């Protein structure tokens, strides 16, 4: 399995001797084996040059850039090599046809909320009383099939998330201030963690979409806006409960992340470098975790599940098999 490389130090990344070198400010060098690289995550202040980008494009490696506060700011997305006009037309058709679009949007919300309930059940079975939240969410879930418009579906999804977040203080053992989701900027530790991990999930989805014929610009649940790859938001919806939320619970319950991992000068709204490193390491571990796939009957990693999800979407679009959002089975 190819590796992701996360660069926190400041320095210069360049092509040399048919591989990539990362040179820190103090002059020490790290060699990154290019043949075994999936993507590069740039968190530090890094210099790039076009020679490097040319080489990365040749090898199909995207670079995801994050700003000073650890927020996702964009990706260097190499030239698409897997183009399919046919699939693009189908994808657009599914977007413009309200009935088709709704079917897909429902599948996304259905999968996402199923995984949310599964998370709650997991902790409910471990002596935390979450019954009322589970029931409330199941109530919202039953309305997914009846929904007549994507906006309505987004509303249901919002309600589910709100109820879900209300359950968090019960799940997390340590003292936390968390009432509701606040973004831009996040107002406390939990919100900062959610924002940070979600941005990692988006990039993972984008990276996997890159390896398929799908066009990341055309989405179904989210409105395909300008400026962002919204299909990765759709996919991320399904994987957020599995990847990001579970990591937050583990990190906090094991006290791997505490107050000192946040920037105090801005009211604990952002993770500091050591905090980011802890989260990234845990996230990377999670992506590499393997499980036995029920249908394929072989071992697949968590990251590969995202790719399989893309393939399912392709099958739906070309009319081979109806898409159903991923549901966690373990």
């Amino acid at each position, binding site marked *: *399995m190819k*590796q*992701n*490389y*996360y*660069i*926190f*130090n400041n320095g210069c990344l360049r092509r040399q*001797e*048919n*591989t990539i070198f*990362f040179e*820190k400010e103090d002059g020490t060098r*790290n*060699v990154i*084996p*290019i*043949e*075994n690289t999936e993507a590069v995550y740039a968190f530090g202040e890094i210099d790039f040059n076009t020679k490097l980008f040319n080489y990365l494009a040749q090898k199909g490696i995207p670079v995801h850039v994050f700003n000073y506060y650890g927020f996702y700011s964009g990706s260097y997305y190499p030239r698409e090599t897997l183009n399919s006009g046919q699939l693009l037309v189908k994808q657009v058709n599914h977007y413009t046809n309200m009935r088709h679009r709704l079917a897909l949007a429902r599948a996304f919300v259905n999968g996402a909320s199923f995984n949310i309930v599964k998370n709650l059940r997991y902790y409910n079975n471990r002596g935390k009383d979450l019954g009322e939240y589970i029931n409330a969410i199941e109530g919202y879930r039953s309305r997914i099939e009846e929904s007549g418009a994507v906006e309505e579906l987004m509303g249901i999804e919002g309600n589910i998330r709100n109820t879900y977040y209300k359950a968090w203080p019960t799940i997390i053992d340590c003292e936390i201030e968390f009432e509701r989701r606040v973004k831009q900027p996040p107002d406390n530790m939990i919100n900062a963690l959610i924002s940070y991990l979600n941005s990692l999930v988006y990039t993972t989805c984008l990276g996997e979409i890159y390896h398929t014929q799908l066009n990341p610009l055309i989405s179904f649940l989210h409105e395909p806006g300008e400026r962002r790859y919204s299909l990765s938001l759709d996919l991320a919806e399904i994987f957020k409960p599995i990847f990001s939320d579970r990591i937050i619970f583990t990190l906090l319950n094991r006290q791997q992340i505490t107050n000192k991992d946040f920037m105090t000068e801005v009211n604990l709204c952002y993770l500091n470098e050591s905090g980011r*490193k802890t989260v*990234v*390491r845990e996230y*990377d571990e999670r992506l590499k975790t393997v499980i036995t796939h029920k249908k394929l009957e072989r071992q697949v990693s968590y990251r590969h599940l995202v790719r399989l999800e893309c393939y399912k979407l392709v099958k739906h679009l070309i009319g081979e098999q109806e898409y159903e959002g991923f549901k966690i089975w373990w």
Partner: protein
Amino acid sequence: MYVIVVYDVDQKRCGKMLKLCRGYLHHIQNSVFEGEITEAKLEELKIKSRKIMREEDNDSLIVFKSRNEKWLEKEIVGTDKRPVDNVL
């Protein structure tokens, strides 16, 4: 698959082997590399290394294979000069 690759080639070709292997694995000591690699990529590496090596000088490359990193116990005596890590 997790592998350890070591080579012993005439010093004229050391640099070439180093450059080649660095593209695939982590350099942990002089002429020793380790890392996760796929079956196909390892084959590619072997083919490319054959083109560099010369039989008349008894050049060789040895691959130690392990199914997974966890089946490999690694002990470092002295200093760990180049730790293998993907968080830089």
